């Protein structure tokens, strides 16, 4: 067992864990926060995406012990009480899901994406400067698969929030 202190959605935790536990399993099993989903458990689908210290990562490929002192945000921490975040509201408005299994990962991913845009970070399709076009959003969201194929509406929802922000 290994000691681990980290903050999840603003709440500090002081734990003892097996070093084999992934951050995803820590959230779901130890902390009973089942918003983050396990799709593949191998870094291939993005359903487990959470935000660590402001950056989105696949929590399934990250050992929880490596997150000493980290600040983790999950889907449970995105809304402000009952008030949806702008992205959550846009997903509802644009019907950006069907079964909803990929949605927590999509929203965490898109939340961090908005900050990446704000910092002017490039993607592989960026020319000189980031432009808010479909292609940019699609490339930046390619790590989040949706078996229901809600991609068009997901892109519309994210673009709307991104445009409102600039």
């Amino acid at each position, binding site marked *: 067992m290994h000691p681990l202190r980290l903050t999840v959605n603003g709440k500090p935790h002081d734990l003892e864990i097996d070093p*084999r536990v992934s951050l995803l399993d820590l959230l779901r099993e130890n902390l009973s926060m089942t918003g983050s989903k396990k799709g593949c*458990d191998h870094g291939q689908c993005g359903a487990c995406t959470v935000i660590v210290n402001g950056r*989105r*990562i696949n929590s399934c*490929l990250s050992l929880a012990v490596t997150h000493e002192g980290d600040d983790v945000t999950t889907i449970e921490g995105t809304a402000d009480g009952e008030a949806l975040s702008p992205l959550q509201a846009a997903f509802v408005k644009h019907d950006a899901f069907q079964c909803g299994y990929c949605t927590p990962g999509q929203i965490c991913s898109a939340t961090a994406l908005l900050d990446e845009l704000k910092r002017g970070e490039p993607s592989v399709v960026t020319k000189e400067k980031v432009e808010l076009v479909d292609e940019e959003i699609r490339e930046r969201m390619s*790590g989040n698969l949706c078996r229901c194929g809600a991609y068009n509406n997901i892109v519309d929802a994210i673009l709307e929030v991104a445009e409102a922000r600039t």
Partner: protein
Amino acid sequence: MRPFSYSRVADDKAAVAAAGAQNAKFLGGGTNLVDLMKHEIERPETLVDVSRLPHEEIEQTESGLRIGAAVTNSALAADAVVREKYPLLSTALLSGATQQLRNRATTGGNFLQRTRCQYFYDTQRACNKREPGSGCDAIGGLNRFHAILGASENCIAVHPSDMAVAMVALGADAETVLPQGGVRTIPADALHRLPGDTPHIDHQLAQGELITHVVLHKAPQYQMYRKVRDRSSYAFAVVSIGIAFDLLEGHFMKIRIAFGGVAHKPWRAARAEEVLEGKAPSRALFEEAADAELAEAKGQGDNDFKIPLMRRLIVASLTEMTSAQEKAA
């Protein structure tokens, strides 16, 4: 996953000392190692976490950059100097994996990621890399993604990294700390090895040897990275190419070319470079260079298409890079 002990170390000395333990492995972002540990393909008894070593800086040197091994792939790709002076590297990084993975993946770990050969991953199948002496199910099997250069009768796997191809094309050097103390510098193109009779060994580093930095030298004037893949995003390269050169009075100077997706290591196209160096660009010359490099290329069946594909990629990339120049002249 097999049990292991985990430790976080504060400096290089502690890292290499801890890695002297039985079957120890360094842990970077874990995006490859943790995946392989889940499959029990990697079974380390000790994990030494080097992701928080003080190697998270990108320093400017007199002529280039010195990149800490713990710098993430996304930080490196977004660095203003890298984008401006080494677009080849930035593009290669951004064309690999996804933002979520790049946010964790480190410069050191990316170099040493293991092959994506599906038989290496499938523990029910024969694989000399995973289980030395067991055979190779990729030979005569499904081998669309496999090697056309430098393969052996024991292994035809390819190295999957985009970043490493860029590092070879840019003539980067890796700096390491040896387990017994002392440091060494290894050119990026000498870091990995061909499979030969020992395909279970991917690279030249000793057990417990730690990559601390990667050094980039003076930025070449012309650079390009191109990746050919089955989907436009989030897919490993079928083949890729990194090219860097200067032009002196319309002639290639210090040209370096590296291929991805064709061999057990990022493939330095030394024969093509030799044909091109000092010459003026022309389509005939590009074709001659491609033919020289691919003279010994050998398909495995499913991947035969990679030979003409690579040939066209070489010619098209060099044409695109030099045509802007021609128009200006």
